[in-house]
């Protein structure tokens, strides 16, 4: 099982012929992901390291049966690329691109969510998704992950790596790791991903990695209390960040009294889920919960 991507994933990469797209899509293919197509307008009919290139996503889907796309185009073209994937029938869209204007995302995310409940947009400004041993779509280093029972969802990329590493030290693998990205208007939020983990028989426990800014964590805690039967271990970065400063991610900012670390920690504790103090403690709490189960 796993969520979002697995053995049946057929990947088309928008921006495959660019240097970043080429490098990471190549790593995804080497991991075992079925890379079936690339899209670069004007380069259709050529091939890139053995992968056929098409002018449009529509053509790529028609010719190859691609069901998942990865967006690696510059920020100014990202909203357009996401919509192109959606209108071409792609069901899982993973947008890696960072610095996409928030208004573009509000429009695109609103449009897709109003029309389809079977389409997942992950990102932008995210490291992608990996289902260890099955498929990797994005920039998460496959070699640090191993198959197992923990689902991981995170706003931060490097904290995915850090926490996977901590879990690995304790011999605990992952069903799927999802980086939802650090932007103020992400395509998928924690609740979208938690509901998928709840329904996934391979996932026994979820690690949720949030950070300061916005209220996605608070909403996730309230939702999970009502809807999750599986345990969640939460961790939030940015406790010591000064208010009013944007901490690297466009969405990581405490505005006035909103988006504080304390509000997020309180929400999860009130919902009955443990909150770890640091990434190392996340793995320790996970191990403790597993030994009880």
């Amino acid at each position, binding site marked *: 099982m796993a969520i979002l991507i697995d053995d049946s994933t057929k990947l088309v990469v928008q921006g495959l012929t660019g240097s970043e797209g080429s490098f*990471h899509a190549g790593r995804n293919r080497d991991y075992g992901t079925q890379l079936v197509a690339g899209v670069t307008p004007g380069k259709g009919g050529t091939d890139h390291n053995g992968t056929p290139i098409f002018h449009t996503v529509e053509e790529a889907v028609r010719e190859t049966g691609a069901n998942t796309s990865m967006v690696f185009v510059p*920020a100014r073209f990202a909203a357009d690329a996401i919509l192109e994937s959606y209108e071409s029938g792609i069901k899982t869209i993973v947008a890696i691109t960072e610095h996409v204007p928030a208004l573009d995302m509000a429009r695109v995310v609103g449009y897709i969510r109003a029309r389809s409940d079977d389409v997942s947009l992950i990102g932008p400004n995210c490291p992608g998704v990996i289902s260890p041993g099955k498929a990797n779509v994005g920039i998460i280093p496959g070699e640090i992950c191993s198959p197992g029972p923990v689902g991981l969802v995170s706003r931060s*990329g490097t904290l995915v790596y850090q926490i996977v590493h901590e879990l690995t030290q304790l011999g605990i693998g992952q069903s799927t790791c999802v980086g939802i990205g650090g932007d103020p208007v992400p395509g998928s939020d924690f609740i979208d991903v938690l509901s998928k983990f709840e329904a996934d028989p391979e996932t026994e426990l979820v690690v949720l990695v949030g950070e300061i800014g916005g209220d996605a964590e608070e909403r996730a805690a309230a939702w999970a209390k009502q809807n999750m039967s599986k345990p969640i271990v939460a961790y939030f970065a940015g406790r010591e960040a*000064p208010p009013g400063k944007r*901490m690297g991610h*466009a969405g*990581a900012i405490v505005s006035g009294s909103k988006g504080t670390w304390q509000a997020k920690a309180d929400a999860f504790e009130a919902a009955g889920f443990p909150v770890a103090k*640091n990434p*190392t403690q996340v793995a320790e709490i996970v191990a403790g919960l597993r030994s009880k189960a």
Partner: protein
Amino acid sequence: MDLFEYQGKELLRKFEIPVPEGRVASTPEEASEATRFLGSRVVVKAQVAVGGRGKQGGVKLVSSPEEAHEAAAQIFDITFTDQEGRGAERSKRVLVERAGELKAEYYCSFILDRTSRKHLAIMSSEGGMDIEEVNRTNPDAIAKVTIDPLLGLSDFHARELVFGGNIDEEARKGALSILPKLYRALVELDASQIEINPLVLTGDGKVMALDAKVILDDSAAFRHPFYEELKAAHEVNEQERKAKEHGLNLIKLDGDVGIIGNGAGLVMSTLDVVKDAGGSAANFLDVGGGASAEVLSNSLQIITENPEVKSIFINIFGGITRCDLVAEGIIHALARLDVDVPIVVRLDGTNAEQGRKMLADAPHPMLKTADTMLGAAEKAVALAHGEGA
């Protein structure tokens, strides 16, 4: 980017939103000159990014050029802080505006709301106060309307705001005409917030924006060349400016442990574990993904130029970033810089073993390594406190 009031108002004027007549002054003489031009009664307002400037003496009502001169001189002397007393900001300019009679003060704002992923407009007859406070004490006095950015503001939205917000009858027409203009400004400027607090009804029955807090979405800079010009008016900390020149994202903080890490989340987490170890970070510095040896070397140089820094913690989890290149950058920096504070390095992920070996093969009295993130944090804090580790 948070704009200064005068910058926000200049933009609003382009959308035909009424604002008081005013002049920007950089010296007391200019403030006095502006007052002569505008007429007798004027308000002299500090132009700072922090909130609560009025309570700190940053807004003064005066009635002569001489008084304006004095008011501006006083304002230029104030060090403004945020509500928690943090930060220290000087006002480089004052906005001198014609003052008039006010009949009423209202609140009006538009934001791009993260929760609904839509635009959210708020209007209230309780103007001039902190809207969060009004929301707590008198929520009925606030009208909130959600606007789908694919459709935009409809007339009924504006009516719901004006009637729901209990705006006085005399001000309704003016408010109804301003709201679509504010919404157009929000969208066309790629603003994440336009807050007018207060929106006022003047003695002669006009509705105008007496204050303006505009926040622009930095990610949209590529389609708004004027952002760059607006940014130039903002003071940036020297260290932050230098980092930016090198393509690094640095935020200056008040502690003494210099921080270098890769990825915003990991760096935020690093600040937290340093605090838990009893220390305090001197900065946030994210070298980003795929950092080269040169980037690491530049980062170390910028951090060591801060005299407050007593130790440095380099926390890298290599994904796209290669730990061997990180090690190369550190070794290079130690060779070319006169580093006199200890550096604690923790490397994991891509090519970590190779990186650790490179550091072990290039011993330097200031270079220490640690196996784990928490162990490294403790070591860096102990060293900052002058304890051998």
